[in-house]
Protein backbone atom coordinates (compact mmCIF):
# COMPACT_ATOMS: atom_id res chain seq x y z
CA UNK A 1 0.00 0.00 0.00
CA UNK A 2 1.34 3.42 -0.88
CA UNK A 3 1.54 5.80 2.01
CA UNK A 4 1.07 9.31 0.78
CA UNK A 5 1.43 12.34 3.00
CA UNK A 6 -1.75 14.45 2.62
CA UNK A 7 0.32 17.53 1.74
CA UNK A 8 1.99 15.77 -1.19
CA UNK A 9 -1.36 14.37 -2.29
CA UNK A 10 -2.89 17.85 -2.35
CA UNK A 11 -0.12 19.18 -4.59
CA UNK A 12 -0.51 16.33 -7.06
CA UNK A 13 -4.30 16.71 -6.99
CA UNK A 14 -4.09 20.39 -7.85
CA UNK A 15 -1.61 19.63 -10.65
CA UNK A 16 -3.93 16.99 -12.08
CA UNK A 17 -6.93 19.29 -11.97
CA UNK A 18 -4.89 22.04 -13.65
CA UNK A 19 -3.83 19.61 -16.37
CA UNK A 20 -7.43 18.51 -16.91
CA UNK A 21 -8.63 22.12 -17.09
CA UNK A 22 -5.90 23.03 -19.58
CA UNK A 23 -6.75 19.98 -21.69
CA UNK A 24 -10.41 21.02 -21.62
CA UNK A 25 -9.56 24.58 -22.66
CA UNK A 26 -7.39 23.54 -25.60
CA UNK A 27 -9.51 20.63 -26.79
CA UNK A 28 -12.12 20.54 -29.48
CA UNK A 29 -15.41 18.68 -29.52
CA UNK A 30 -13.90 15.16 -29.59
CA UNK A 31 -11.22 15.95 -27.03
CA UNK A 32 -13.77 17.35 -24.59
CA UNK A 33 -15.92 14.28 -25.02
CA UNK A 34 -12.80 12.26 -24.17
CA UNK A 35 -12.28 14.33 -21.02
CA UNK A 36 -15.82 13.57 -19.89
CA UNK A 37 -15.17 9.90 -20.48
CA UNK A 38 -11.91 10.06 -18.51
CA UNK A 39 -13.59 11.83 -15.60
CA UNK A 40 -16.15 9.02 -15.41
CA UNK A 41 -13.44 6.36 -15.62
CA UNK A 42 -11.54 8.23 -12.92
CA UNK A 43 -14.53 8.14 -10.53
CA UNK A 44 -14.96 4.45 -11.29
CA UNK A 45 -11.24 3.79 -10.72
CA UNK A 46 -11.17 5.78 -7.46
CA UNK A 47 -14.13 3.79 -6.17
CA UNK A 48 -12.30 0.55 -6.94
CA UNK A 49 -9.13 1.90 -5.32
CA UNK A 50 -11.10 2.46 -2.13
CA UNK A 51 -12.16 -1.19 -2.26
CA UNK A 52 -8.87 -2.78 -3.38
CA UNK A 53 -6.14 -0.35 -2.41
CA UNK A 54 -7.49 0.71 0.98
CA UNK A 55 -9.96 -2.05 1.84
CA UNK A 56 -7.78 -4.87 0.53
CA UNK A 57 -10.71 -6.53 -1.23
CA UNK A 58 -9.77 -7.41 -4.80
CA UNK A 59 -12.92 -7.45 -6.91
CA UNK A 60 -13.33 -8.63 -10.48
CA UNK A 61 -16.99 -7.69 -10.49
CA UNK A 62 -16.93 -3.99 -9.73
CA UNK A 63 -18.50 -3.16 -13.12
CA UNK A 64 -21.67 -4.82 -11.82
CA UNK A 65 -22.31 -1.72 -9.71
CA UNK A 66 -21.29 0.65 -12.50
CA UNK A 67 -23.83 -1.09 -14.74
CA UNK A 68 -26.52 -1.33 -12.07
CA UNK A 69 -26.31 2.40 -11.49
CA UNK A 70 -26.75 3.05 -15.20
CA UNK A 71 -29.58 0.53 -15.58
CA UNK A 72 -31.36 1.81 -12.48
CA UNK A 73 -31.24 5.31 -13.92
CA UNK A 74 -32.53 4.01 -17.26
CA UNK A 75 -35.38 2.13 -15.58
CA UNK A 76 -36.42 5.02 -13.35
CA UNK A 77 -36.38 7.62 -16.10
CA UNK A 78 -37.69 5.57 -19.04
CA UNK A 79 -40.25 3.28 -17.36
CA UNK A 80 -41.29 5.21 -14.26
CA UNK A 81 -40.83 8.59 -15.96
CA UNK A 82 -38.91 10.00 -13.02
CA UNK A 83 -37.05 13.23 -13.65
CA UNK A 84 -33.30 12.56 -13.90
CA UNK A 85 -32.59 14.82 -10.92
CA UNK A 86 -34.54 12.46 -8.64
CA UNK A 87 -33.64 9.27 -10.49
CA UNK A 88 -29.88 9.83 -10.20
CA UNK A 89 -29.59 9.73 -6.41
CA UNK A 90 -32.16 6.95 -6.16
CA UNK A 91 -30.25 4.84 -8.71
CA UNK A 92 -27.14 5.20 -6.57
CA UNK A 93 -29.06 4.32 -3.39
CA UNK A 94 -30.65 1.26 -4.98
CA UNK A 95 -27.24 0.04 -6.13
CA UNK A 96 -25.98 0.60 -2.60
CA UNK A 97 -28.74 -1.63 -1.27
CA UNK A 98 -27.83 -4.38 -3.73
CA UNK A 99 -24.18 -4.02 -2.70
CA UNK A 100 -25.16 -4.25 0.95
CA UNK A 101 -26.94 -7.55 0.34
CA UNK A 102 -24.17 -9.00 -1.85
CA UNK A 103 -21.51 -7.75 0.53
CA UNK A 104 -23.27 -9.28 3.52
CA UNK A 105 -23.05 -12.64 1.75
CA UNK A 106 -19.44 -12.52 0.59
CA UNK A 107 -17.51 -10.11 2.80
CA UNK A 108 -16.01 -12.85 4.97
CA UNK A 109 -14.35 -14.45 1.95
CA UNK A 110 -10.70 -13.68 1.32
CA UNK A 111 -8.19 -13.82 -1.49
CA UNK A 112 -9.02 -15.82 -4.56
CA UNK A 113 -12.45 -16.82 -3.22
CA UNK A 114 -13.52 -13.20 -2.93
CA UNK A 115 -12.19 -12.50 -6.43
CA UNK A 116 -14.05 -15.43 -7.95
CA UNK A 117 -17.33 -14.70 -6.18
CA UNK A 118 -17.30 -11.04 -7.24
CA UNK A 119 -16.59 -12.24 -10.76
CA UNK A 120 -19.54 -14.60 -10.53
CA UNK A 121 -21.90 -11.87 -9.28
CA UNK A 122 -20.73 -9.58 -12.06
CA UNK A 123 -21.36 -12.21 -14.69
CA UNK A 124 -24.78 -12.99 -13.21
CA UNK A 125 -25.66 -9.34 -13.65
CA UNK A 126 -24.35 -9.34 -17.19
CA UNK A 127 -26.23 -12.54 -18.07
CA UNK A 128 -29.44 -11.12 -16.61
CA UNK A 129 -29.37 -7.91 -18.60
CA UNK A 130 -28.20 -9.70 -21.76
CA UNK A 131 -31.32 -11.90 -21.63
CA UNK A 132 -33.87 -9.62 -20.06
CA UNK A 133 -36.25 -8.19 -22.68
CA UNK A 134 -37.54 -5.32 -20.53
CA UNK A 135 -34.15 -3.63 -20.61
CA UNK A 136 -33.60 -4.43 -24.27
CA UNK A 137 -31.47 -7.55 -23.87
CA UNK A 138 -28.08 -7.52 -25.55
CA UNK A 139 -29.05 -4.47 -27.60
CA UNK A 140 -29.63 -2.34 -24.52
CA UNK A 141 -31.82 0.73 -24.13
CA UNK A 142 -31.34 4.20 -25.50
CA UNK A 143 -32.97 7.57 -25.06
CA UNK A 144 -32.18 8.09 -21.37
CA UNK A 145 -33.06 11.73 -20.65
CA UNK A 146 -30.35 14.05 -19.43
CA UNK A 147 -30.32 16.19 -16.34
CA UNK A 148 -31.64 19.66 -17.04
CA UNK A 149 -28.88 22.07 -16.07
CA UNK A 150 -30.31 25.17 -17.74
CA UNK A 151 -30.18 27.03 -14.39
CA UNK A 152 -26.40 26.75 -14.68
CA UNK A 153 -26.65 27.70 -18.33
CA UNK A 154 -25.22 24.28 -19.16
CA UNK A 155 -26.37 21.53 -21.51
CA UNK A 156 -25.15 17.99 -20.89
CA UNK A 157 -25.59 17.15 -24.57
CA UNK A 158 -22.74 19.52 -25.23
CA UNK A 159 -19.44 17.66 -24.58
CA UNK A 160 -17.76 20.82 -23.27
CA UNK A 161 -20.43 21.28 -20.60
CA UNK A 162 -20.61 17.59 -19.85
CA UNK A 163 -16.83 17.43 -19.36
CA UNK A 164 -16.96 20.32 -16.89
CA UNK A 165 -19.77 18.73 -14.91
CA UNK A 166 -18.02 15.34 -14.89
CA UNK A 167 -14.72 16.95 -13.83
CA UNK A 168 -16.50 18.75 -11.02
CA UNK A 169 -18.13 15.55 -9.81
CA UNK A 170 -14.80 13.69 -10.03
CA UNK A 171 -13.14 16.43 -7.99
CA UNK A 172 -15.86 16.23 -5.34
CA UNK A 173 -15.54 12.43 -5.22
CA UNK A 174 -11.79 12.79 -4.81
CA UNK A 175 -12.19 15.30 -1.97
CA UNK A 176 -14.74 13.13 -0.20
CA UNK A 177 -12.59 10.00 -0.54
CA UNK A 178 -9.47 11.83 0.64
CA UNK A 179 -11.39 12.92 3.72
CA UNK A 180 -12.68 9.41 4.30
CA UNK A 181 -9.22 7.89 3.97
CA UNK A 182 -7.61 10.38 6.37
CA UNK A 183 -10.37 9.94 8.94
CA UNK A 184 -10.33 7.53 11.90
CA UNK A 185 -12.60 5.32 9.79
CA UNK A 186 -9.97 5.25 7.05
CA UNK A 187 -7.22 4.52 9.57
CA UNK A 188 -9.15 1.54 10.94
CA UNK A 189 -9.94 0.27 7.43
CA UNK A 190 -6.23 0.45 6.53
CA UNK A 191 -5.35 -1.34 9.74
CA UNK A 192 -7.79 -4.12 8.85
CA UNK A 193 -6.18 -4.37 5.43
CA UNK A 194 -2.68 -4.45 6.89
CA UNK A 195 -3.43 -7.05 9.55
CA UNK A 196 -7.00 -8.24 9.82
CA UNK A 197 -6.22 -10.82 12.47
CA UNK A 198 -4.64 -8.28 14.80
CA UNK A 199 -7.37 -5.70 14.23
CA UNK A 200 -9.90 -8.35 15.26
CA UNK A 201 -7.89 -9.24 18.37
CA UNK A 202 -8.02 -5.56 19.32
CA UNK A 203 -11.80 -5.62 19.17
CA UNK A 204 -12.44 -4.27 15.70
CA UNK A 205 -15.66 -5.59 14.13
CA UNK A 206 -13.76 -6.23 10.92
CA UNK A 207 -16.72 -7.37 8.81
CA UNK A 208 -18.69 -4.18 9.48
CA UNK A 209 -15.85 -2.02 8.22
CA UNK A 210 -15.32 -4.16 5.15
CA UNK A 211 -19.03 -4.11 4.38
CA UNK A 212 -19.13 -0.33 4.73
CA UNK A 213 -16.21 0.05 2.33
CA UNK A 214 -17.74 -2.41 -0.12
CA UNK A 215 -21.03 -0.51 -0.13
CA UNK A 216 -19.52 2.95 -0.45
CA UNK A 217 -17.26 1.75 -3.28
CA UNK A 218 -20.29 0.25 -5.04
CA UNK A 219 -22.28 3.48 -4.69
CA UNK A 220 -19.45 5.54 -6.15
CA UNK A 221 -19.17 3.06 -9.02
CA UNK A 222 -22.93 3.51 -9.50
CA UNK A 223 -22.42 7.27 -9.58
CA UNK A 224 -19.88 6.78 -12.38
CA UNK A 225 -22.35 4.47 -14.13
CA UNK A 226 -25.17 7.01 -13.98
CA UNK A 227 -22.84 9.64 -15.41
CA UNK A 228 -21.94 7.26 -18.23
CA UNK A 229 -25.65 6.78 -18.99
CA UNK A 230 -26.00 10.57 -18.95
CA UNK A 231 -23.09 10.95 -21.34
CA UNK A 232 -24.22 8.38 -23.90
CA UNK A 233 -27.95 8.28 -23.18
CA UNK A 234 -27.63 4.55 -23.57
CA UNK A 235 -27.26 1.40 -21.46
CA UNK A 236 -26.23 -2.09 -22.55
CA UNK A 237 -24.94 -5.24 -20.86
CA UNK A 238 -21.44 -4.23 -21.97
CA UNK A 239 -21.42 -1.82 -19.01
CA UNK A 240 -21.18 -4.68 -16.55
CA UNK A 241 -19.31 -7.34 -18.47
CA UNK A 242 -16.35 -8.76 -16.56
CA UNK A 243 -13.70 -7.37 -18.90
CA UNK A 244 -14.95 -3.94 -17.89
CA UNK A 245 -14.26 -4.91 -14.24
CA UNK A 246 -10.83 -6.10 -15.35
CA UNK A 247 -10.07 -2.87 -17.19
CA UNK A 248 -10.85 -0.67 -14.23
CA UNK A 249 -8.68 -2.92 -12.04
CA UNK A 250 -5.88 -2.43 -14.57
CA UNK A 251 -6.34 1.36 -14.38
CA UNK A 252 -5.99 1.19 -10.60
CA UNK A 253 -2.90 -1.03 -10.74
CA UNK A 254 -1.22 1.11 -13.43
CA UNK A 255 -1.82 4.23 -11.37
CA UNK A 256 -0.88 2.73 -8.04
CA UNK A 257 -3.04 0.83 -5.57
CA UNK A 258 -4.05 2.83 -2.54
CA UNK A 259 -2.89 6.16 -3.89
CA UNK A 260 -6.31 7.51 -4.89
CA UNK A 261 -4.72 9.90 -7.41
CA UNK A 262 -2.74 7.23 -9.27
CA UNK A 263 -5.93 5.51 -10.46
CA UNK A 264 -7.07 8.83 -11.98
CA UNK A 265 -3.88 8.91 -14.04
CA UNK A 266 -4.38 5.24 -14.84
CA UNK A 267 -7.91 5.97 -16.02
CA UNK A 268 -6.70 8.82 -18.25
CA UNK A 269 -3.84 6.80 -19.74
CA UNK A 270 -5.96 3.74 -20.33
CA UNK A 271 -8.80 5.68 -21.96
CA UNK A 272 -6.48 7.67 -24.20
CA UNK A 273 -4.38 4.68 -25.24
CA UNK A 274 -7.53 2.73 -25.92
CA UNK A 275 -8.86 5.40 -28.27
CA UNK A 276 -5.73 6.44 -30.08
CA UNK A 277 -4.15 2.98 -30.40
CA UNK A 278 -7.32 1.33 -31.59
CA UNK A 279 -7.53 3.96 -34.33
CA UNK A 280 -3.98 3.18 -35.47
CA UNK A 281 -3.68 -0.58 -35.28
CA UNK A 282 -5.94 -3.60 -34.89
CA UNK A 283 -3.30 -5.03 -32.51
CA UNK A 284 -3.89 -2.26 -29.96
CA UNK A 285 -4.94 -4.73 -27.27
CA UNK A 286 -1.54 -6.44 -27.51
CA UNK A 287 0.23 -3.09 -27.08
CA UNK A 288 -1.98 -2.20 -24.09
CA UNK A 289 -1.13 -5.60 -22.60
CA UNK A 290 2.59 -5.02 -23.06
CA UNK A 291 2.23 -1.57 -21.48
CA UNK A 292 0.44 -3.02 -18.46
CA UNK A 293 3.06 -5.75 -18.01
CA UNK A 294 5.87 -3.19 -18.27
CA UNK A 295 4.27 -1.01 -15.58
CA UNK A 296 3.78 -3.92 -13.22
CA UNK A 297 7.33 -5.22 -13.75
CA UNK A 298 9.12 -1.87 -13.68
CA UNK A 299 6.98 -0.01 -11.15
CA UNK A 300 5.31 -2.53 -8.88
CA UNK A 301 3.58 0.23 -6.96
CA UNK A 302 2.23 1.78 -10.14
CA UNK A 303 2.96 5.20 -11.59
CA UNK A 304 2.25 6.99 -8.34
CA UNK A 305 4.59 4.72 -6.44
CA UNK A 306 7.32 5.27 -9.03
CA UNK A 307 6.83 9.04 -8.82
CA UNK A 308 6.95 8.97 -5.03
CA UNK A 309 10.16 6.93 -5.17
CA UNK A 310 11.73 9.41 -7.60
CA UNK A 311 10.96 12.42 -5.43
CA UNK A 312 12.15 10.56 -2.35
CA UNK A 313 15.50 9.62 -3.89
CA UNK A 314 15.99 13.15 -5.17
CA UNK A 315 15.42 14.50 -1.69
CA UNK A 316 18.05 12.13 -0.36
CA UNK A 317 20.68 13.40 -2.83
Amino acid sequence: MNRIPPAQRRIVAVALLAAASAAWWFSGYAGQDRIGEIAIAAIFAMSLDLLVGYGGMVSLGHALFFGLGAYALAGLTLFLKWPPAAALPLAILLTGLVALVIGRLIIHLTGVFFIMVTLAFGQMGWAWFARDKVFGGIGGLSGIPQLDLSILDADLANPADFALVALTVATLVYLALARLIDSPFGAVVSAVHRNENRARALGCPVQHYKLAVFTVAAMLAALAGTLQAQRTGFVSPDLLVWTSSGEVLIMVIIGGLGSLLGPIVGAALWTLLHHYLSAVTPYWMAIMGAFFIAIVLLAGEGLYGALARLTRSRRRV
Partner: protein
Amino acid sequence: MFRAEGLCKSFGALEVARGISLQLPRGARHAIVGPNGSGKTTLFNLLSGELRPDAGQVYIEGRDVTSLSPDARARAGLTRSFQKNNLFPDLTVLESLAVAVGIGVGAGTIFWRPFVRSTEIYRRAAAIAERIRLTPFLDAVVGTLPYGTQRQLEIGLALAIEPKILLLDEPTAGMSADETAEMAKLIADLPGELALLVIEHDMEIVFDFARRITVLDYGSVLAEGTPAEIRASPEVRRRYLGETAR
Protein backbone atom coordinates in the same frame (compact mmCIF):
# COMPACT_ATOMS: atom_id res chain seq x y z
CA MET B 1 -13.17 -11.37 36.55
CA PHE B 2 -12.30 -14.14 34.14
CA ARG B 3 -13.16 -17.80 34.28
CA ALA B 4 -12.84 -20.80 31.98
CA GLU B 5 -14.47 -24.10 32.82
CA GLY B 6 -13.82 -27.55 31.43
CA LEU B 7 -12.46 -26.46 28.06
CA CYS B 8 -12.09 -29.37 25.63
CA LYS B 9 -10.84 -29.28 22.07
CA SER B 10 -9.81 -32.02 19.66
CA PHE B 11 -8.40 -31.86 16.18
CA GLY B 12 -9.48 -35.21 14.79
CA ALA B 13 -8.13 -37.86 17.12
CA LEU B 14 -5.71 -35.41 18.74
CA GLU B 15 -7.02 -34.04 22.03
CA VAL B 16 -5.31 -30.70 22.59
CA ALA B 17 -7.37 -29.52 25.52
CA ARG B 18 -8.87 -31.91 28.05
CA GLY B 19 -11.11 -30.21 30.53
CA ILE B 20 -8.96 -27.20 31.34
CA SER B 21 -10.33 -24.81 33.97
CA LEU B 22 -8.84 -21.52 34.98
CA GLN B 23 -9.75 -18.52 37.14
CA LEU B 24 -8.25 -15.07 37.01
CA PRO B 25 -9.35 -12.61 39.69
CA ARG B 26 -8.78 -8.89 39.25
CA GLY B 27 -5.06 -8.14 39.31
CA ALA B 28 -4.13 -11.77 38.72
CA ARG B 29 -0.55 -12.63 37.80
CA HIS B 30 -0.92 -16.10 36.40
CA ALA B 31 1.57 -18.10 34.32
CA ILE B 32 0.99 -21.08 32.11
CA VAL B 33 3.93 -23.38 31.62
CA GLY B 34 4.37 -26.74 30.00
CA PRO B 35 6.51 -28.49 27.42
CA ASN B 36 6.14 -27.75 23.72
CA GLY B 37 2.97 -29.25 22.34
CA SER B 38 1.28 -29.34 25.74
CA GLY B 39 -1.54 -27.15 24.41
CA LYS B 40 -0.63 -23.71 25.76
CA THR B 41 -1.26 -21.71 22.60
CA THR B 42 -4.37 -23.76 21.86
CA LEU B 43 -5.65 -22.79 25.28
CA PHE B 44 -4.99 -19.12 24.45
CA ASN B 45 -6.88 -19.50 21.19
CA LEU B 46 -9.79 -20.98 23.10
CA LEU B 47 -9.74 -18.19 25.66
CA SER B 48 -9.45 -15.38 23.09
CA GLY B 49 -12.07 -16.86 20.78
CA GLU B 50 -9.94 -17.77 17.79
CA LEU B 51 -10.98 -21.37 18.41
CA ARG B 52 -14.35 -22.63 19.61
CA PRO B 53 -14.17 -25.25 22.32
CA ASP B 54 -15.91 -28.62 21.81
CA ALA B 55 -17.06 -28.35 25.40
CA GLY B 56 -16.67 -25.93 28.29
CA GLN B 57 -17.40 -22.25 28.87
CA VAL B 58 -15.53 -18.97 29.06
CA TYR B 59 -16.82 -16.12 31.25
CA ILE B 60 -15.77 -12.49 31.36
CA GLU B 61 -17.06 -10.77 34.49
CA GLY B 62 -19.70 -13.43 34.88
CA ARG B 63 -20.94 -13.14 31.31
CA ASP B 64 -20.76 -16.25 29.13
CA VAL B 65 -18.66 -15.29 26.09
CA THR B 66 -18.08 -18.83 24.78
CA SER B 67 -19.91 -18.16 21.54
CA LEU B 68 -18.41 -14.69 20.97
CA SER B 69 -15.81 -13.92 18.30
CA PRO B 70 -12.34 -12.57 19.19
CA ASP B 71 -13.37 -8.98 18.44
CA ALA B 72 -16.47 -9.20 20.62
CA ARG B 73 -14.37 -10.66 23.46
CA ALA B 74 -11.88 -7.84 23.02
CA ARG B 75 -14.72 -5.35 23.35
CA ALA B 76 -15.77 -7.19 26.51
CA GLY B 77 -12.29 -6.53 27.92
CA LEU B 78 -10.06 -9.43 26.90
CA THR B 79 -7.20 -9.20 24.45
CA ARG B 80 -3.94 -10.96 23.75
CA SER B 81 -0.47 -10.60 22.36
CA PHE B 82 0.92 -13.13 19.95
CA GLN B 83 3.81 -15.57 20.07
CA LYS B 84 4.98 -14.37 16.66
CA ASN B 85 4.95 -10.59 16.26
CA ASN B 86 1.60 -9.61 14.81
CA LEU B 87 1.90 -5.89 14.14
CA PHE B 88 1.31 -3.25 11.48
CA PRO B 89 4.85 -3.31 10.03
CA ASP B 90 4.60 -0.30 7.71
CA LEU B 91 3.10 2.08 10.26
CA THR B 92 5.17 4.00 12.77
CA VAL B 93 5.04 3.09 16.46
CA LEU B 94 2.85 6.10 17.24
CA GLU B 95 0.51 5.43 14.29
CA SER B 96 0.16 1.77 15.31
CA LEU B 97 -0.68 2.64 18.89
CA ALA B 98 -3.02 5.43 17.80
CA VAL B 99 -4.99 3.13 15.52
CA ALA B 100 -5.15 0.52 18.29
CA VAL B 101 -6.43 3.14 20.75
CA GLY B 102 -8.84 4.28 18.04
CA ILE B 103 -10.20 0.77 17.65
CA GLY B 104 -10.45 0.48 21.43
CA VAL B 105 -12.58 3.60 21.81
CA GLY B 106 -14.60 2.87 18.68
CA ALA B 107 -13.37 5.98 16.87
CA GLY B 108 -13.72 4.21 13.53
CA THR B 109 -17.27 5.44 13.16
CA ILE B 110 -15.93 8.97 12.63
CA PHE B 111 -15.37 9.38 8.92
CA TRP B 112 -15.18 13.09 8.36
CA ARG B 113 -12.57 14.58 10.71
CA PRO B 114 -8.88 13.83 9.98
CA PHE B 115 -7.54 11.16 12.33
CA VAL B 116 -4.39 13.17 13.05
CA ARG B 117 -6.58 15.75 14.77
CA SER B 118 -7.78 13.18 17.31
CA THR B 119 -5.39 14.65 19.85
CA GLU B 120 -6.82 12.74 22.81
CA ILE B 121 -6.22 9.42 21.00
CA TYR B 122 -2.67 10.39 20.08
CA ARG B 123 -2.02 11.54 23.64
CA ARG B 124 -3.11 8.16 24.98
CA ALA B 125 -1.03 6.39 22.31
CA ALA B 126 2.03 8.35 23.43
CA ALA B 127 1.30 7.47 27.07
CA ILE B 128 1.22 3.78 26.18
CA ALA B 129 4.47 4.13 24.27
CA GLU B 130 5.98 5.50 27.45
CA ARG B 131 4.66 2.60 29.50
CA ILE B 132 6.22 0.06 27.11
CA ARG B 133 9.43 2.14 26.95
CA LEU B 134 9.15 3.00 23.27
CA THR B 135 9.01 6.80 23.52
CA PRO B 136 12.35 7.18 21.67
CA PHE B 137 10.91 5.20 18.73
CA LEU B 138 7.58 6.97 18.27
CA ASP B 139 8.24 7.92 14.66
CA ALA B 140 10.18 4.80 13.66
CA VAL B 141 8.53 2.47 11.16
CA VAL B 142 7.65 -0.69 13.05
CA GLY B 143 9.12 -3.11 10.51
CA THR B 144 12.55 -1.47 10.80
CA LEU B 145 12.76 -1.85 14.59
CA PRO B 146 14.87 -4.54 16.28
CA TYR B 147 13.01 -7.72 17.11
CA GLY B 148 12.94 -7.16 20.85
CA THR B 149 11.55 -3.66 20.42
CA GLN B 150 8.80 -5.01 18.18
CA ARG B 151 8.05 -7.52 20.94
CA GLN B 152 7.45 -4.61 23.32
CA LEU B 153 5.07 -3.02 20.84
CA GLU B 154 3.27 -6.36 20.60
CA ILE B 155 2.25 -5.80 24.23
CA GLY B 156 1.68 -2.10 23.68
CA LEU B 157 -0.97 -2.72 21.04
CA ALA B 158 -2.82 -4.99 23.44
CA LEU B 159 -2.61 -2.40 26.21
CA ALA B 160 -3.91 0.29 23.87
CA ILE B 161 -7.49 -0.94 24.15
CA GLU B 162 -7.27 -0.81 27.97
CA PRO B 163 -8.18 -4.45 28.52
CA LYS B 164 -9.28 -5.90 31.84
CA ILE B 165 -7.77 -9.27 30.98
CA LEU B 166 -4.53 -9.55 29.05
CA LEU B 167 -3.12 -12.76 27.64
CA LEU B 168 0.57 -12.68 26.70
CA ASP B 169 1.82 -15.50 24.51
CA GLU B 170 5.55 -16.04 25.18
CA PRO B 171 6.48 -12.37 25.51
CA THR B 172 10.19 -13.21 25.65
CA ALA B 173 10.23 -15.70 22.77
CA GLY B 174 13.42 -15.38 20.73
CA MET B 175 14.83 -12.56 22.86
CA SER B 176 18.40 -11.98 23.95
CA ALA B 177 19.24 -11.93 27.68
CA ASP B 178 19.19 -8.11 27.77
CA GLU B 179 15.91 -7.91 25.92
CA THR B 180 14.43 -10.53 28.25
CA ALA B 181 15.44 -8.50 31.28
CA GLU B 182 13.84 -5.41 29.75
CA MET B 183 10.67 -7.38 29.07
CA ALA B 184 10.60 -8.68 32.66
CA LYS B 185 10.62 -5.07 33.89
CA LEU B 186 7.89 -4.16 31.45
CA ILE B 187 5.72 -7.03 32.68
CA ALA B 188 6.36 -6.08 36.29
CA ASP B 189 5.20 -2.53 35.51
CA LEU B 190 1.89 -3.51 33.93
CA PRO B 191 -1.17 -1.92 35.55
CA GLY B 192 -1.90 -3.61 38.87
CA GLU B 193 -5.65 -4.06 38.32
CA LEU B 194 -5.10 -5.92 35.05
CA ALA B 195 -5.71 -9.67 35.14
CA LEU B 196 -2.64 -11.09 33.46
CA LEU B 197 -2.20 -14.56 32.01
CA VAL B 198 1.18 -15.34 30.50
CA ILE B 199 2.58 -18.30 28.60
CA GLU B 200 6.29 -18.37 29.28
CA HIS B 201 9.16 -20.79 28.88
CA ASP B 202 11.68 -18.80 30.87
CA MET B 203 11.11 -20.16 34.40
CA GLU B 204 13.10 -17.33 35.94
CA ILE B 205 10.59 -14.83 34.56
CA VAL B 206 7.70 -17.03 35.62
CA PHE B 207 8.84 -17.36 39.21
CA ASP B 208 9.57 -13.65 39.17
CA PHE B 209 6.15 -12.25 38.29
CA ALA B 210 3.63 -15.07 38.76
CA ARG B 211 1.53 -15.46 41.86
CA ARG B 212 -0.14 -18.55 40.43
CA ILE B 213 1.11 -21.11 37.96
CA THR B 214 -0.72 -23.68 35.88
CA VAL B 215 1.33 -26.52 34.45
CA LEU B 216 -0.10 -28.06 31.31
CA ASP B 217 0.82 -31.44 29.95
CA TYR B 218 -0.80 -33.20 27.01
CA GLY B 219 -3.70 -30.76 27.06
CA SER B 220 -4.63 -31.18 30.69
CA VAL B 221 -3.75 -29.44 33.92
CA LEU B 222 -0.90 -31.29 35.56
CA ALA B 223 -0.72 -28.97 38.53
CA GLU B 224 -1.88 -25.55 39.67
CA GLY B 225 -0.68 -23.52 42.60
CA THR B 226 1.60 -20.85 43.94
CA PRO B 227 5.18 -20.76 42.68
CA ALA B 228 6.35 -22.42 45.90
CA GLU B 229 3.81 -25.24 45.53
CA ILE B 230 4.76 -25.78 41.89
CA ARG B 231 8.45 -25.82 42.72
CA ALA B 232 7.78 -28.37 45.44
CA SER B 233 5.53 -30.65 43.41
CA PRO B 234 7.36 -33.90 42.72
CA GLU B 235 5.27 -34.62 39.66
CA VAL B 236 5.99 -31.24 38.08
CA ARG B 237 9.68 -31.63 38.84
CA ARG B 238 9.70 -35.03 37.20
CA ARG B 239 7.61 -34.19 34.15
CA TYR B 240 8.63 -30.64 33.43
CA LEU B 241 10.96 -28.63 35.59
CA GLY B 242 13.47 -31.42 35.84
CA GLU B 243 14.08 -31.43 32.13
CA THR B 244 14.15 -27.72 31.36
CA ALA B 245 15.11 -25.66 34.40
CA ARG B 246 18.42 -27.18 35.21
